[in-house]
């Protein structure tokens, strides 16, 4: 997706290992979000950021941490991966007050074995 990239696209990791997913934007948008997508649950917000070093929790934040040291990068870390964190993770960016102005990345498929 234009202006936003996620890495890696796919990852398999073992239970108990730390994992970091990266979201990079070239749009200079203020807001960045991490969602996870699971069947029957839609997309659920994990954490979001409203500026450099400004982050807050979403509805499913347990077991996840985030960092944003630069406008363009928003990192999601699973401190100790569990099988329940097997999911597809999406990053999104938006401008303040922009109706519908959310752009999503292509997702990272994470499997915890």
């Amino acid at each position, binding site marked *: 997706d234009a202006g936003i990239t996620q890495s890696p696209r796919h990852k398999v990791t073992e239970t108990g290992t730390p994992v970091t997913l990266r979201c990079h934007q070239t749009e200079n948008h203020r807001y960045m979000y991490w969602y996870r997508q699971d069947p029957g649950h839609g997309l659920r917000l994990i954490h979001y950021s409203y500026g450099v070093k400004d982050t807050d929790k979403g509805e499913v934040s347990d077991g996840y941490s985030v960092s944003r040291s630069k406008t363009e990068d928003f990192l999601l870390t699973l401190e100790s991966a569990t099988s329940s964190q097997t999911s597809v993770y999406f990053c999104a960016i938006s401008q303040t007050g922009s*109706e519908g102005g*959310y752009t999503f990345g292509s997702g990272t498929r994470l499997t915890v074995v």
Partner: protein
Amino acid sequence: QQQVKQSPQSLIVQKGGISIINCAYENTAFDYFPWYQQFPGKGPALLIAIRPDVSEKKEGRFTISFNKSAKQFSLHIMDSQPGDSATYFCAGVVYNQGGKLIFGQGTELSVKP
């Protein structure tokens, strides 16, 4: 916690028919209501959005109907085409909470030729 509930979970429509997806929300904090379309392996993409002070919005074959008193809104896809086969998500957005998108559970639409 704000929630958006979506139905049906899956929908099969014949080509040329009307697809209807319904959503309901639980509180009045949302500032607007977008619909997203997602194809397999891709991130969600904005389809159409509506503000709560508007009862209907139409863009091409896609129409949102909004009933503020009932806290319900729906997406109508007229003249449904096989290319419309995708997963659709309704959502609500709260500007003063970091612009968070709160998604419904999703509807998998299949349009048969």
